[in-house]
């Protein structure tokens, strides 16, 4: 009954292609067209112009784009550093099914609370008159309250770690769980140190999960205005906020230009990541064989 992909009815390909053109390509093409028009008095001017792209750069929105990517990248790396050992321990370290179930359950709890409600708590903690500054003053670590604890990139990065922890843990946990215990045993029996096993056996085998973790964590963070708005205090503007501000006055063309630039960056970013992954795993699977 199994048919290899080449034997699948070509009609299927056609449907898939049509669907992709309809939901993927046409909106993107529309975006590209909008981005080379301009807006005046809430109205679209039907003359090709690069004004929207010039506006992206003159209004500081390019820096906003770069900052958004930087913040998302920093948080993704930090989160993966915390998530990797945690997910590995959950998958391979503990044998108790109950522990696993409880931990996985706990990881989903945050999704039931609004992100704003969870984030706003940081403001109370990190403010000039908050308990963190209070403690530091009491201990004599600082003589004046630290103003960079809140309304700063530091606050935004800190606030983003917890909400994006589960999105990194889940795919990693899945990937680690799928690794056969016997493979790990074999590595140990052959005299490999735990570190060697992790770097040369676990990592290459978990690459799809790591990739998924990065995508599920990094990409949504780029479009998320909640944490940067609440903890950045207007000092850490990110892309989503910048686009919202444009849409409030119906400035679709600059928003479109910004989106096109973002799309190009993301395609570049993901292709590089895919290429690196391929090289990385390719090299190792050769070494193993």
């Amino acid at each position, binding site marked *: 009954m199994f048919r290899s992909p080449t034997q699948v009815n070509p009609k299927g390909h056609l449907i898939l292609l049509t669907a992709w053109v309809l939901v993927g390509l046409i909106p993107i093409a529309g975006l590209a067209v909008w981005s080379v028009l301009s*807006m005046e008095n809430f109205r679209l001017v039907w003359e090709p112009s690069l004004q929207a792209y010039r506006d992206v750069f*003159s209004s*500081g929105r390019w820096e906003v784009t770069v900052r958004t990517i930087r913040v998302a990248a920093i948080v993704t790396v930090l989160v993966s550093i915390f998530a990797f050992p945690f997910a590995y321990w959950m998958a391979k370290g503990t044998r108790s099914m109950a522990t696993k179930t409880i931990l996985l359950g706990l990881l989903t709890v945050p999704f039931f609370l609004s992100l704003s409600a969870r984030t706003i708590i940081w403001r109370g903690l990190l403010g000039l008159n908050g308990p963190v500054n209070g403690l530091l003053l009491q201990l004599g670590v600082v003589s004046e309250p630290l103003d960079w604890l809140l*309304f700063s990139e530091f606050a935004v990065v800190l606030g983003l770690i917890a909400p994006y922890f589960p999105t990194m843990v889940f795919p990693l946990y899945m990937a680690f769980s799928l690794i056969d215990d016997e493979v790990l045993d074999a590595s140990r029996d052959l005299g490999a140190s735990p570190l060697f096993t992790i770097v040369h056996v676990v990592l290459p085998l978990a690459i799809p999960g790591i990739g998924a973790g990065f995508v599920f964590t990094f990409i949504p963070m780029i479009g998320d205005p909640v944490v940067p708005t609440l903890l950045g205090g*207007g*000092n850490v503007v990110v892309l989503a906020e910048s686009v919202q501000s*444009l849409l*409030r*006055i119906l400035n679709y063309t*600059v928003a479109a230009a910004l989106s096109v630039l973002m799309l190009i960056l993301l395609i570049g970013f993901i292709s590089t990541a895919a290429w690196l992954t391929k090289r990385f795993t390719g090299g190792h699977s050769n070494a193993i064989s």
Partner: protein
Amino acid sequence: MSNGKSSSTIGRRSLLKLGAAAGATALAAPFYARNAFATGGSVRVLGVTTVALPDWQGFAADTGMEIEFTPINSDPGFYVQEVVANEVGDDYDVFIFDGGIEDRLGESGHFQAIDGGSLSRWAEVSEEVKTSPLLLGTGGEQYGAPIVFNADSFGYYTDEVGDGAEELSWGTIFENEKLMGKVAIADTWLTALPSAALYLIGKGAKIADPSNMTPQEAAMVVDFLIEQKNVGQFRALWHSYEESVDLLSNQEVLAIECWEPVIKQLQGEGKRVRYANTSEGYSKWMIGAYLPSQAEGERLERAYTAIDWFLGGRYGAEIAVSRGYATANANAALKFAVEQGWSDDQRGAIEDNITKVERKMAAAHYWQNSSPDHVEAIESEWSRFKQA
């Protein structure tokens, strides 16, 4: 058997029908009860949340109509989109939007002019309020009727800034070494840019109309704001009412450009804060009622009845007490409160409004304009400030 079967079917159907009828009656009963006064149908209003009352029972009692109020946010882009692209004038009898939008939507034929003669209370509205540029079209046509308005400034702790005996400069917010890093402003070009412009005008800058700046004027104001931002004048930019309350309440900042209800709330909590009287002028805003061009005949009559009610005493009294906002006919509001035997506190809120309107609304500058001529350039300048 077949008879029995069919009869049982009929029986089940009848039961279902009966059930449906009973259900409908049950649902309808409170509806009719609720509409005991509402014999004149309903009026559909698309309006900003600022003007909404917690309940509209008074409207039904006074006009005999139900009000179907659809609340929306104050976004000029949203008004244009709904009115022009989605043609919501087909569905709504009255729009209640931030003033300024009539310059565009009146001119484009989406609003019809308001005939003061069709409003019984029009003559009671002061000329100064009626002729606010936020209600008139570019050619002076009366497109809007005033619903609520206020003169915004900033709030501050009296111990740190002053007891409020004299007028304060906007420099308290925008250029002040003593309060450096202890100040917050609203994250919107709509108020932050023209208020900064007021301060600069006070210092001698040439800006013709703070609420309708040219791209060059906006760039000049933003250059100044960036300078101030870089020396650390602003602690934060706020995005919501709650945030502004929080910032001042925690003393994260000691002075903040904000809405008046913020200060009312904190005074109620016993904080020593005041809402500033300014030396340069205020950020005056007005929310107006506008008539969609599609409204005519009976629909138009209902729309006029509704607008007339908003100009009356009950609405003015209720919004003054709940929000501290001014209305076009404050004397009627006071009369209503006295007649209804409201408490001294409540009457005081209305009396405060009368004084406030006399003192603040007469100031020269400026009427907030949600759709300045160069809105794209102004938004872009604001973005430059935020990124700096």
